[in-house]
Each structure stands twice: as structure tokens, then as C-alpha cells.
């Protein structure tokens, strides 16, 4: 039956036949796009492999932070003092589980910071050990007075301009170590004879991640979710650019002169892009599950819903950027800015808790943030189906809005002959 025969049918059958023909047209357009996609098998393989490679790379970078107990601050230590007390302090620093040190001279430490091969250096200045030792003697002999206290040269913490957090951490750890060492000496006279002083934390402390997950944090959960979503956006852009390429060549003229409404043409492209994107998510997260220990903490159904909504987001955003860009070069630049910006703000590269508060707040306005939240809920924090569906709904709402705007924009361009004359 041709789609035209519906016009000869009774009115009762017309809408049903139209719906059937529309669905068949969308499928025909989708099938054509899928055929084009798989006609270049190497490109298709790369399309599935790249998010896996990116996820592996980023996961490896953050893998060291997987066990919080083993988290160490890398620090350069410059020791310019040879006093026995200083040597004792350096020994305690070396044994600290919180820092990993590399001992260098002051000039080498500065060179390393300049070359960005280190973030923080602590300098123990000459005379520090003697001064602290003298102070200890005064305290132990009960002759200490504030006015007669010897001047202690300052310990210096130098750091890269962006490493304020690490500098604060170094300051805290150094203070803790020096205090522990000196407290034993200063308070020894107060303890009963023979008592072994212990200056560990005088209260119990429990640490746990919240929301709780049944598994500990796996850096690959974040990296595969983030990189997979970022690559979806690039795939969406690529698909949108294909539309512009069709428009530049005669293919668009053929498509538009065929008895196919613009809405179905766009829908066909959206469906094919979404299907390929969905396959990308399945393969990427399947790889992460099989080889990187990423486990599904949330609902299976939630994962499917979230993956579909994220794929739809990629397809519609790509379409919108392409339509707004009008030319391939303009659309590509626009898309790169949009994708990299949304990826960064959405926490695809770095976990969002590392981002400043205002960025975290602003990121709520982007669908990419909600997509990542949904994925992290599934693979990390163990969100339930309702929580995942909430994220999926928000992402889908953005997608539908993008599709409506893209359709309106393209229809407007056609109506005003902008496509024909390149006028804006």
C-alpha cells in the first residue's frame, strides 16, 4: 500500500493510516541513517571505542583516590636545618600516612613548582630545631616566659597559585606532626613517672561516604559516566552536522521536495542518533562493568530509562546547535563551546564536589548535570528508581524543548527562504 492511498480511504481510516505511514517513514529515514553509519565500519568501531578509551584514561588518573585511607598529599620537603630535633621531626613527617614526600633543595623545589611538577613545598628553615629545643628546655625547667621566648624562624609553605587546598592540607598536617612531637617533651614533667605518653586523637572518629553506596567509590564509575555522556554530545553534534551537509548538497532539496513533512525528517534523524547513542552507552558501561569493576548500584530499569533520555538529549542538542549554527563551520564552533562548557560545568571531567559552589549552583540549569547525576546515582550512590526517573524526566524535558525550538527554527528558515538565500 502506498502512503498516498490513504487519501482514497474512508475518513475513519485516514488518521490511522496516516499514523502508520508516518511511523513507517520515520523508520525508513532511521534505517537510512543507520545504513550510512555502518557503511564505514572503522568509523563505527571508533565511535564505540573512543568513550571507552576516554573512560579508562580518566578512571586511571583518579584511581589513586579510590581508597580514602590511602589518600596522600604529594609534597616537596626542603630541610635547611641539621638540628637533632629537626631530624626527629623529618623522621615523623616521613612516617606520616597522610603525605608522600620528596626531599629537595630550596632552588630545586622552586624549579619543580615553576615547571608544575609539584604543587606544594614545605621549607624547614635553618635554626628552627635549635629554637624549638631551647623553648622545650625553658618549658621543662619551668622558666618559660612569653617575653623571653626565643624567636623561631618561620616554616614556609610555598605552592602553585591554584593549589590553595593542598597548601592548607600541608599546613594542617605539618602542625599536627610538630605538635605531636613537641607535646611529648613539653608535657612529660606532668605525667607520672614511667607513664608512656600517647598523643593520638583523644576521641574516636568515624568517616563514611554519604549517600551510602553498597560498594566503595570506583573512580571508573565517574569517568565512564562522564566520558560516555560527553562523547554522546559529540555524537549528537556530528549527527546535526550531517543535516547541514545534506542541506549544503542537493540531498536536502530532494528530501524536502518529497512528500515527507519536516517534522518527520527531523524525527527520523533524532531516532537514528538516539539509537546509536543508546548503543554507545550500553557498550561503554558494559565494558566498565566487565573490566573495571563498575557495578550497577541502582535499578536496571532506571539505567535503561536514563540511558535513553541521555541519548535523546545528545540527539536533540546536536540538532538544535546545527540548526542555530546554519553553516557547518559556525555550528561546529558553537557546538564545541557548548559541549566543552556543559561537560566541564556538569562535572564530566572532574567530580562536581571539586568545583566551586557557584559553578555547582549554576550547573543545575544544564541537562548535562542532571544526566550525570542520574548515571552516578545508578553506578555509584545507589539511587532508587524514582530518583533516577526524576533526573531522566528533567533531561527529557530539556530534550523536548530543544527539539521544538530546532523544528520551529528550521521551519522559520524555510518559510523566510533563509536556507535558499543564506539570509539571516
Amino acid at each position: 500500500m502506498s502512503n498516498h492511498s490513504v487519501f482514497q480511504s474512508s475518513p475513519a481510516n485516514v488518521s490511522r493510516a496516516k499514523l502508520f505511514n508516518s511511523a513507517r517513514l520515520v523508520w525508513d529515514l532511521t534505517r537510512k541513517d543507520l545504513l550510512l553509519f555502518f557503511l564505514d565500519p572503522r568509523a563505527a568501531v571508533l565511535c564505540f571505542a573512543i568513550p571507552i578509551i576516554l573512560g579508562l584514561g580518566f578512571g586511571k588518573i583518579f584511581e589513586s583516590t579510590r581508597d580514602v585511607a590511602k589518600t596522600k598529599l604529594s609534597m616537596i620537603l626542603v630541610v635547611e636545618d641539621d638540628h637533632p630535633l629537626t631530624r626527629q621531626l623529618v623522621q615523623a613527617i616521613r612516617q606520616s600516612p597522610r603525605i608522600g614526600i620528596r626531599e629537595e633543595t630550596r632552588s630545586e623545589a622552586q624549579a619543580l613548582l615553576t615547571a608544575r611538577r609539584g604543587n606544594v613545598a614545605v621549607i624547614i628553615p635553618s635554626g628552627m630545631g635549635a629554637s624549638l629545643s631551647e623553648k622545650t628546655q625553658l618549658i621543662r625547667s619551668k622558666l618559660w616566659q612569653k617575653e623571653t621566648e626565643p624567636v623561631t624562624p618561620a616554616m614556609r609553605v610555598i605552592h602553585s597559585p591554584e593549589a590553595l587546598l593542598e597548601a592548607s592540607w600541608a599546613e594542617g598536617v605539618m602542625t599536627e606532626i610538630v605538635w605531636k612531637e613537641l607535646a611529648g617533651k613539653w608535657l612529660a614533667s606532668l605525667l607520672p613517672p614511667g607513664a608512656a605518653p600517647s598523643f593520638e586523637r583523644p576521641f574516636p572518629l568515624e568517616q563514611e561516604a554519604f549517600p551510602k553506596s553498597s560498594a566503595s567509590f570506583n573512580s571508573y564509575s565517574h569517568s565512564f559516566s562522564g566520558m560516555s555522556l560527553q562523547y554522546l554530545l559529540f555524537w549528537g553534534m556530528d549527527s546535526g552536522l550531517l543535516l547541514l551537509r545534506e542541506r549544503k548538497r542537493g540531498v536536502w532539496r530532494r528530501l524536502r521536495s518529497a512528500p515527507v513533512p519536516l517534522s518527520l525528517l527531523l524525527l527520523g534523524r533524532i531516532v537514528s542518533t538516539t539509537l546509536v547513542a543508546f548503543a554507545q552507552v550500553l557498550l561503554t558501561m558494559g565494558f566498565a562493568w566487565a573490566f573495571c569493576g563498575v557495578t550497577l548500584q541502582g535499578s536496571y530499569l532506571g539505567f535503561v530509562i536514563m540511558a535513553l533520555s541521555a541519548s535523546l538529549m545528545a540527539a536533540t542538542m546536536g540538532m538544535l546547535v546545527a540548526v542555530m549554527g546554519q553553516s557547518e563551520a559556525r555550528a561546529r564552533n558553537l557546538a564545541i563551546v557548548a559541549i566543552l562548557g556543559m561537560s566541564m560545568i556538569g562535572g564530566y571531567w572532574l567530580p562536581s564536589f571539586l568545583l566551586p559552589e557557584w559553578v555547582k549552583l549554576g550547573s543545575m540549569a544544564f541537562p548535562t548535570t542532571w544526566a550525570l547525576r542520574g548515571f552516578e546515582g545508578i553506578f555509584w550512590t545507589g539511587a532508587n528508581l524514582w530518583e533516577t526517573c526524576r533526573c531522566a524526566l528533567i533531561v527529557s524535558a530539556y530534550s523536548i524543548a530543544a527539539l521544538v525550538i530546532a523544528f520551529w527554527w528550521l521551519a522559520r528558515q524555510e518559510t523566510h527562504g533563509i536556507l535558499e538565500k543564506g539570509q539571516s
Partner: protein
Amino acid sequence: MRGKELWFFGEEGVSMADRFALEVDDLHVRYGHLHAVCGLSLRLKRGESLALLGANGSGKSSTLSALCGLVQPDSGSIQIDGISLTQNPGLCRSRLGVVPQDFAFYEEMSGRDNLMFVGRLYGLHGTRLRRKVREVLDFVRLADVAHRPAGTLSGGMQRRLNLACSVLHDPVLLLLDEPTVGLDMNSRDAIYQLLESLRDRGCAFILTTHQLHEAEGFCDKVAVLRKGVLIAQGTLAELARQNPQPVKKPLHPELEESRVDSVHHFAHELRGPQGTNLESVLSRILAESNAREVTP
């Protein structure tokens, strides 16, 4: 009988021969201040062919775009096979074939896959689609290379595939935008043989070309556009007797810079053997049109 096959979409009881393949009345297309098509009226019967001539920016492309529904006309009516393009665009487009100047197929896909895809857009499926694809491939003599990616075919073959994609659904009206550009003489002849065969089966054509001898040799009628106005139309004999329609001077000359319409440029753009009847007729019409330009 073959003619009947061409119009399988037609309603029963309506005499096909009585219908015009194309009726355009007082068509206006504007892009902002630019009046691209100004009051164009055309009639074309089945099996008739019309060459649309004009310099760059004269409104040829805009006319074709409006006819295939790519541009929304500001006013006027277009009827293809008696069906209004505005009221029933889907049905109208199903009776229209478009051969764009650029290759309008997917180079990565084989010729057969391209045809199968286009056929599905026009509602052909299953056995009927496969039969039509086979027939059209034989018709354009591409059956032997139908499995090859379209981008690997020669220029002439690609032009024939472009044409095949446009006639697969047996259109009543075919719009051709310079269908032989960049082809050698043999390939051009092959294209025109195919077109003549289609015309014999009742298909009407509108053809834009810069080759005067092609327009003169192949088309029944010629229409000349200048600044969006159809200044003359008819057979060569009719054109020789006609005075051009007046053209208004532009209200916004700065918007019309792209319209190169002097006689010199027009003659330079149109190529044909010197002394062609059509060339001399066009030169006279354009010269008179230039002289008779009126202030709006």
C-alpha cells in the same frame, strides 16, 4: 497504457489529459525587501517542456524552490496536476520530481540503496519498490553498476542516478536545475534521450540551463525571467513576436546587487552556437526590457 501508469495517484473518473501538469498564478516570493519572484504565471501541459532562462539572480532558483515547496510564497497559487501545493503539499509533492544541480544522493550508499530509500519516501514498498528500482536502473542504464557506492561512479553516471532518483515515483512534473552541467557531449545526449523518453510518457518538464542550444533543441517553450519578472514566454516563434513585460526599477537597489541582468552579462552566461535563433531573440527581448524599465 504507460501513460496511465505514470499517474497511478490520480482520482478515478477525472480525465488526466484535461489537467495541466503545472498552473502557477501571480506568484510572489520575497526575502525581506528583495522581491525575488514578482507576479509569475505559468501553465504547462503534460508532456510539455519549458526552459526557464535568466541571468544569475533573476529568480530562477527561487521559482524552482517555490514550486517544490522549499520556499513559502508570499502570495499566488501553485497547482501541480490540479492539486494545490498550499492546501495539499504532501499529495502535490508526490507528483513532483526534482533534479537538483548538485548530486542529490548519498555518495556512500550504492545506487540501488539510494533508489530504495527515495522510493520509500514516496510510499513505495516491498515487491513494487524492487520492481520500480529495477525498471529505473534499466531505464538509466545503471543496472550493472547499481551495487557500487554512488560516489565512485563517473560524472555522467552520477547525473543519471540523480535523474533516476527523481523519476522513480513517476512524477507528473519534473523540475531540472541544469541537469547536464559539467558533462561531456555524449553524457549530455544520454541525459536528453532519457528526458525525451520521459516526455513521451507524459511527464512535463521545467528546465533551467545556460546552454541555449539545449533549451532550443529540447524544450517546447521558453520563459525568460528578469529581476523576478517573467518578461516573455512562449515558443521560439511566439517569442520572436513578443514585446517584453515591463520591469520595475528596484526600490532598494543595494539589495539587488547580486542580480546581474545586463544584456552583456546574460549573453555571456548563456552559451550556444553564435547565431542561434534563441540567442538573437533573447538579446532583443532583454535590450527592450532594459530600455522599458519603469519607475514603481
